């Protein structure tokens, strides 16, 4: 057992490999996510979804990718071109930077027979900060600049409205995210994902969700808002603001928003799985399978909710955040603190 815990040294080669892995795999996963979303939503509406390209439409991802890459990159005449071009990159970049502090995939050592890279240890977290959770939250906060700048630079009123909604929604729900996750942080006494994982290793009953059900629900709701999923997808709600901040975007730039959004969804799912649902069981051989399942469940939950529930109005959004969720989160923290003191 102890031999397992002594991990090899993390070299910069390993980190680099990890970064490339994350970039590659999460991008792919994000693309796959679009496919899954289309499929699942279709099933929930008694449709088949993409079926034609490849078996069961699996190659639809490739088709979409080709379409996005080859599509004309339109920049409106009066837009602020530089910012307009940068904005999608911010969304994608922040989403991936956030992932650098999150444990994605198990650690492994490249076998010796591989030329050049043989024996390099690839860690599970690209950058194991001891304030991982805060870093992820901070990066997700920085991610709001993508939609914001996109909306403001494109000289389109729907864009501006979308940007305004972005600012309002992200700023507000960041508070709830932070506060809801504060109670588990207090219990664990650390901001590191690894500590969270270790805290919940005594079987299902030691999962944080049993101790912090309120925080879990709040985090989930806030997570939906942070990744602007239905029922909180006001910033690009077609019926109201055409496509919000993404109105004038097309082609790959639009695709980057898409990838960023899906990467964010994956990040939120990973955080929820690690913080509330026990994380990965390092001792068990199937630990990584379980956490994949948990992440997949959260991802599925997002699609499920999107299929089930309607939008809410902006004023309801704000009402929910400031008058319901935030007080609940504060009360939860207080109760946790009192229980901990007693």
């Amino acid at each position, binding site marked *: 057992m102890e031999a397992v815990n002594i991990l090899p040294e993390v070299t910069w080669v390993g980190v680099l490999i990890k970064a490339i892995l994350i970039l590659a795999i999460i991008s792919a996963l994000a693309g796959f996510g679009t496919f899954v979303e289309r499929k699942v939503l279709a099933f929930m509406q008694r449709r088949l979804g993409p079926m034609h390209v490849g078996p069961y439409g699996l190659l639809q991802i490739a088709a979409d990718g080709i379409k996005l890459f080859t599509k004309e990159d339109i920049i409106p005449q009066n837009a602020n071109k530089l910012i307009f071009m940068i904005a999608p990159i911010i969304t994608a970049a922040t989403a991936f930077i956030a992932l650098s502090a999150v444990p994605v995939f198990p650690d492994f050592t490249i076998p010796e027979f591989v030329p050049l890279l043989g024996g390099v240890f690839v860690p599970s977290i690209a950058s194991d900060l001891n304030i991982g959770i805060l870093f992820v939250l901070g990066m997700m906060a920085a991610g709001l600049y993508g939609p914001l700048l996109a909306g403001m630079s494109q000289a389109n009123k729907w864009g501006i409205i979308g940007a305004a909604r972005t600012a309002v929604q992200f700023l507000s729900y960041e508070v709830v995210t932070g506060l809801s996750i504060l109670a588990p942080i207090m219990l664990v006494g650390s901001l590191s994902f690894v500590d969270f994982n270790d805290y919940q290793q005594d079987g299902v009953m030691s999962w944080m969700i049993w101790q912090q059900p309120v925080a879990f629900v709040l985090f989930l709701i806030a997570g939906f808002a942070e990744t602007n999923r239905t029922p909180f997808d006001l910033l690009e709600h077609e019926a109201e603001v055409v496509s919000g901040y993404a109105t004038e975007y097309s082609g790959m730039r639009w695709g980057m928003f898409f990838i960023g959004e899906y990467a964010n969804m994956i990040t939120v799912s990973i955080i929820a799985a690690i913080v509330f649902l026990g994380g990965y069981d390092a001792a068990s051989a199937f630990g990584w399978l379980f956490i994949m399942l948990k992440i997949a469940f959260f991802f599925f939950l997002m699609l499920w909710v999107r299929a089930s*529930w309607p939008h809410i109005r902006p004023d309801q959004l704000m009402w929910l955040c400031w008058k319901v969720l935030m007080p609940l989160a504060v009360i939860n923290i207080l109760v946790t603190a009192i229980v901990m003191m007693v």
Partner: protein
Amino acid sequence: MSLEQFKNRNVGTQNYTTLDLGKSPETGMEKFTQVIKRSLKGELFVGLGVVMRTMLQALFKGDMHTVKYPFEKMPISPRYRAIHDMLRLMESGNYRCIGCGLCEKICISNCITMDTRYDENQRKEVSEYTINFGRCIFCGYCAEVCPELAIVHGPRYENASEQRAGFSLFEDMLTPIDQLNLQQEYDGFGAISPNADENIKKTPLAY
């Protein structure tokens, strides 16, 4: 109803049915209790449950509603009226059109163009006949006006084209001679109704 009446009408006394939606919350406390009730009664989860049930039914009970359209087609009503068909006489195989030009005259979107000539039997014969489906609005006047029931609306509905003007030639619409036996003697628009004979009234001119 004149404008004045319209303005002064009393909406309340008309036969509207009001739904009993219950009292809408007014005070903060009432709103709060409403939220609590709605949250705890699990109305949200009813929606989730319904959707999940639907998915499971679709996946495992074959309750999938998708029609793979180009490969599968929905059966259409026999009275469906789409792309025109030119009929032949069942007996002789000659086409029914006598080149009277009524359809061209009546076409309100001017999409029918025809040219006639006399054939070797000094019968009038259609030499050119095109319908521009880019313009046709499928009003059905042509079929209605046709004295010979030569032009009717058929069941073909895939009329997409690559140009804006999609012309269809007479021959394209004409029933192929080898499929004459498949030609339906039409219950479609412009067909004779089953009780057509009874409805015929003798005009005074007959006497």
